[in-house]
Each structure stands twice: as structure tokens, then as C-alpha cells.
């Protein structure tokens, strides 16, 4: 079955498993270590997918809930016992200042980014933590991507930091983890013969596959991780 959403496509789901993102559990664990003590913390996994990170949050002692738009993913997460609900991250069904941590992994680029950052700021208590990981563009521009994916709205890292700071966050850590993205892409090359072969498996169309390869060449996707805290209003 072909889809216009990269993360839901069978070639990606089959290989990445429940994590649905490059870096998988390794990057999530690193982010949670940097996020600070999580025992008893009230945490949101924003764009929780099938619940892989919710399990890690619970492992760290957090009281974790997940939100996602994809009903099928939510069913999988719910079947594993996770507390999840369907919601748009640009309109969080949560009161102000109720959370200690928002975790958002390879989802932000799929959204109305500034609205979502504003919502994250709203629902975090002053001093609460934002743990954000996503694709950024190391090249000159984001490229013309033929599928809905985390590459399509990726910006350079300076713009990411300006947007996060502009939304009311102090940035504590920014790290580059592009090696994890390259490893994932290399695994896809081994599996599908080439990057073009991978994109053809996703889109079902060699012309769209070529467009994706061209977009990748132009944008040179990278993977960043950012930890910040909600600025206290004085």
C-alpha cells in the first residue's frame, strides 16, 4: 500500500519498527537523560506514534501521556497499555502550565511549527522542559519533497533555535546527531538497492522517487536534538 506519508509507509515501518524515527531508542534515551530527573514528572509525548517513547518515559518514572493524530498508531499504543488520545498538537486539550516535560520527536516538522511551539510553552509550567528532536536542513534550502515527511518543512538550525527561543524557551542544549540519520539512510540503501529504490518503495513512482533524491541532495538533511526550558515570566 502506498502512502503520501513517509513515516506511515510500509518500507519505513517495517525497518524502523515502533520507534518510527531515525535514532530510535538511542536518541530518546539521551534526551531523557539530559531532561533531568523524571521520577513523578508529568510528561507529554507530543506525536507519540505507537508508544515507543511512552514506554521509556514510564521506565524513567514519569507519568506519561501521549497525543497523536494517527488513529491506527494510537490503537497500537493503547493496546500496549499506554495512556493516549487523538489530538492536534496545534490545539492541545490540556490546561495551562500543567506539564513538567514535553517530548517531541520527528513530528514538529509535520505541523504548524510556531503554533505548536506556542502550545508547548502554554502547557509547560514555568521552568518545565522541552525535549525536541527533528530534521534540519544543512543545505541551502529545504527542497521539493513529494511526500509528507519530516524533511519537507525542515529549516536550518539557526532558524530552529530562533523559533524555539521566540516561543518563550531558554535553550540549554543543542546537539547534532546526523550520523544516526545517515546510518538509517544507509540501512535503507542496503535494503532497497539505492536511495532511489527506497523512495520508489515508499511512493510507488520512479519520478516521485527521483524528486525525493533531488530534494535530499539540495537540503542535505541533518538530525538535531534540543533541550530547553520554559522561560519564567518575571
Amino acid at each position, binding site marked *: 500500500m502506498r502512502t503520501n506519508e513517509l513515516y506511515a509507509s510500509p518500507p519505513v515501518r517495517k525497518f524502523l519498527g515502533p520507534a518510527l524515527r531515525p535514532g530510535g531508542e538511542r536518541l530518546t534515551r539521551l534526551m531523557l537523560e539530559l531532561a533531568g530527573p523524571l521520577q513523578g514528572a508529568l510528561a507529554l509525548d507530543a506525536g507519540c506514534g505507537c508508544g515507543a517513547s511512552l514506554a521509556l518515559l514510564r521506565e524513567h518514572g514519569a507519568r506519561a501521556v501521549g497525543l497523536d493524530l494517527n488513529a491506527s498508531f494510537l490503537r497500537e499504543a493503547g493496546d500496549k497499555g499506554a495512556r493516549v488520545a487523538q489530538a492536534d498538537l496545534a490545539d492541545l486539550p490540556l490546561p495551562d502550565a500543567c506539564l513538567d516535560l514535553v517530548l517531541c520527536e520527528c513530528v514538529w516538522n509535520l505541523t504548524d511549527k510556531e503554533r505548536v511551539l506556542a502550545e508547548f510553552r502554554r502547557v509547560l509550567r514555568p521552568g518545565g522542559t522541552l525535549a525536541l528532536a527533528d530534521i534540519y536542513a544543512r543545505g541551502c534550502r529545504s527542497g521539493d519533497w513529494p511526500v509528507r515527511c519530516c524533511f519537507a518543512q525542515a529549516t536550518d538550525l539557526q532558524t530552529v533555535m530562533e523559533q524555539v527561543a521566540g516561543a518563550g524557551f531558554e535553550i540549554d542544549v543543542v546537539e547534532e546527531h546526523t*550520523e544516526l540519520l*545517515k*546510518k538509517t539512510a*544507509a540501512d535503507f*540503501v*542496503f535494503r532497497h*538497492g539505492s*536511495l532511489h529504490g527506497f523512495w520508489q518503495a515508499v511512493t510507488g513512482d520512479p519520478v516521485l522517487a527521483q524528486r525525493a533524491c533531488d530534494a535530499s541532495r539540495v537540503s*542535505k538533511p541533518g538530525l538535531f536534538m534540543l533541550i530547553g526550558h520554559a522561560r519564567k515570566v518575571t
Partner: protein
Amino acid sequence: MSSLTFEPKDMNWVCEPCGEALELGRVELTYLGNSFHVELPVCAKCGAVYIYEELAMGRIFEVEQLLEDK
């Protein structure tokens, strides 16, 4: 995750120093700190691995370029 198997069209290969017929075996390919677990023709006696030209010039070359950021 299961290994990928890369088998040349003709498996009738013999390791010249050992005289052993090559058989498919698990191999770890590493480059720039990355590991890939695949199955390739291997000499059971000396461990020599056969990477056929199509694999070297195709998948492996593209992986190298990708990891080198080219």
C-alpha cells in the same frame, strides 16, 4: 532485525588459498563507525569474504558516499 543476504548469481566460488567452497555466512561490514550485518559468501576455513562487483559498485558505493556526506 534479520540480516540481508547478498548472493552472486553464481555461487560456484572456491577460496584459492584454502580450496574451500564459499558458503553464505554472517558478516559485519563496518565503515566510519557504522556496522551493517549481512550475509555474504564466506570461506569457512580462513574467513575470506567475497564481495561481488555489482554489490561493491552499487549498494556499497552508495552507502560509502552517503556516510562520507557526498
